[in-house]
């Protein structure tokens, strides 16, 4: 360590400045500013400023096509309380996210761990799992509509062998939740298999070999070595998966919003409502208020997740 421990000194201004300078040097503030500065500037310009602007406009009865956009104070926020479809969307989004996060991450973690025992085949499996991530939604929607079709769908056909009667997967307000979770797991599981793969490959093989020598069972190695070392990556996955699923819109849109084929239950979700209000109903200010709800809601979840994963010292 090159830094010196400064003896206690009278806190005259020059002395304080000197101390501050020494601390900054020790912490490489110059490098931090040079390295992080440009990245933060980009964030401010293309994310934080536009979001702040969106929040500002949530206090106006605003739409870009209108000539007058009066200030309405908390008017948009007050309307949140009486907006039935918004409440429906909020509940649906929470239910959907809970199920999708748990299902996606458990499946991905299990498969990522299992893949490490068949290392040679792992790259091929990872590729196969990743294919849905790169598959565009629109053609995928046709296939999933076929799979979920009540009359001739592959899923009901398979279930008929177990004596299950015709189910309207996309037509029933309850079943559609599970259908959407299945589709979103299909789409995202490969992403998290790759993520967990990176975390698992960073675990030193020596630790596991040592445990093998001690005669540890696979379960013990998993719970005592692998999972604790995976903590940062699991936290990352929980957080990102939560954000991604709270933003769910595309699968809902392509599976339900169609003027053709089997009619689907109109499953409302938050981002769908934000989009509709902003671009279809011409209430951009109100959509901004809904964004604030989304932001506060997800951020409080994330803070809980960070606290839960905090390293106990």
């Amino acid at each position, binding site marked *: 360590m090159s830094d010196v421990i400064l003896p206690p000194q009278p806190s005259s201004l020059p002395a304080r400045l000197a101390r501050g300078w020494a601390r900054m040097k020790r912490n490489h503030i110059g490098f931090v500013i040079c*390295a992080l500065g440009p990245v933060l500037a980009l964030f401010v310009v293309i994310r934080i400023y536009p979001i702040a602007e969106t929040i500002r406009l949530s206090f106006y009865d605003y739409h870009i096509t209108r000539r007058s956009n009066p200030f309405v104070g908390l008017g948009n926020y007050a309307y949140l309380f009486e907006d039935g479809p918004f409440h429906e969307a909020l509940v649906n989004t929470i239910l959907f996210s809970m199920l999708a996060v748990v299902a996606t991450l458990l499946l991905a973690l299990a498969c990522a761990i299992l893949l490490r025992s068949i290392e040679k085949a792992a790259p091929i*499996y990872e590729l196969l799992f990743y294919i849905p991530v790169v598959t*565009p939604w629109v053609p995928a929607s046709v296939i999933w509509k076929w799979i979920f079709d009540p*009359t001739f769908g592959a899923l009901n056909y398979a279930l008929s062998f177990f004596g299950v009667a015709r189910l309207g997967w996309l037509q029933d307000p309850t079943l559609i939740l599970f259908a959407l979770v299945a589709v979103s797991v299909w789409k995202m599981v490969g992403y998290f298999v790759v993520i967990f793969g990176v975390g698992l490959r960073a675990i030193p093989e020596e630790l596991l070999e040592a445990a093998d020598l001690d005669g540890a069972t696979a379960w013990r190695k998993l719970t005592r070595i692998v999972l604790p070392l995976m903590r940062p990556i699991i936290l990352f996955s929980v957080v990102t998966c939560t954000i991604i699923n709270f933003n769910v819109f595309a699968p809902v849109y392509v599976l339900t919003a169609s003027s053709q084929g089997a009619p689907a239950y109109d499953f409302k979700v938050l981002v769908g409502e934000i989009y509709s209000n902003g671009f279809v109903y011409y209430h951009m200010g109100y959509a901004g208020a809904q964004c604030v709800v989304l932001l506060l809601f997800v951020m409080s979840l994330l803070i809980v997740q960070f606290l839960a994963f905090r390293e106990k010292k």
Partner: protein
Amino acid sequence: MFRERSVRIAAWISCSFLALFTVVPVLWIVATAFKTAAEINAWPPTFLPSAPTWANFDEIIYHTEFPRYILNTILVSTVSTVCIMITSSIAGFVFAKYKFPFRGLIFMVLLASATIPLEAYMIPVYIMVFKLKMLNTFAALILPLTIMTFGVFFMRQVIMGIPDELLEAARIDGASEFWIYLRIILNLSKNGLMAIGVFAFTQAWANFMWPLVVVSTGDMYTTELGLAVYQRAFYTEYGPIAAGAVISIVPMLIVFVALRRHIMAGIATSGMKG
């Protein structure tokens, strides 16, 4: 990692099932690309095309400028991927290894900015790009894709796993912080960085809403915009869209394979030893 026979058998079985789940719908799309419109809409649906046809591929290759769209998309996605790999790794490094005022707060603000989808705050970005006279340029297409919160966050998590002692040792040898980033951090976080590269490329490729608003001439089209032509007001022509999807999946899988090839088990471990 696990050499137990039972684990290996479980691995083969469960991963094969998952692979079926992920791949069969995609194979169905591939098969759809070779079907006629009547067969795609026929009921009950077929899996394999009864009379395979290249008509859908002909349609998108000869009636749109699809090769051009693919080149545009490759350009946008590649530049975006490089930018995101740089910005994510350096910011992730700083958040993981340096103490500075408001570190936690700044990080949380970055994370918060990812909770809202671009569609919701697109208009202020659009107006800014317009004022910079950048509408309908590649720069505008790429701009929102130069950073990725998940990338910063992921690199932070990965780099946190690199022992501080390695950095200190380098500093004692007189290394600058930037040298540490280039030579130690990038090397030891390569697995994570390549994964971020894959995601960045995929995300840029699939981007739709932003190109939709900033692009106003056909020569700037990306593949996703090009395929949207087949979505009519009241119905969708799925054949050409499936054919386009098949074509556009290929570059992404090539990138996946290319970047993943660099990822090998134990890189980080051997690095730590060295």
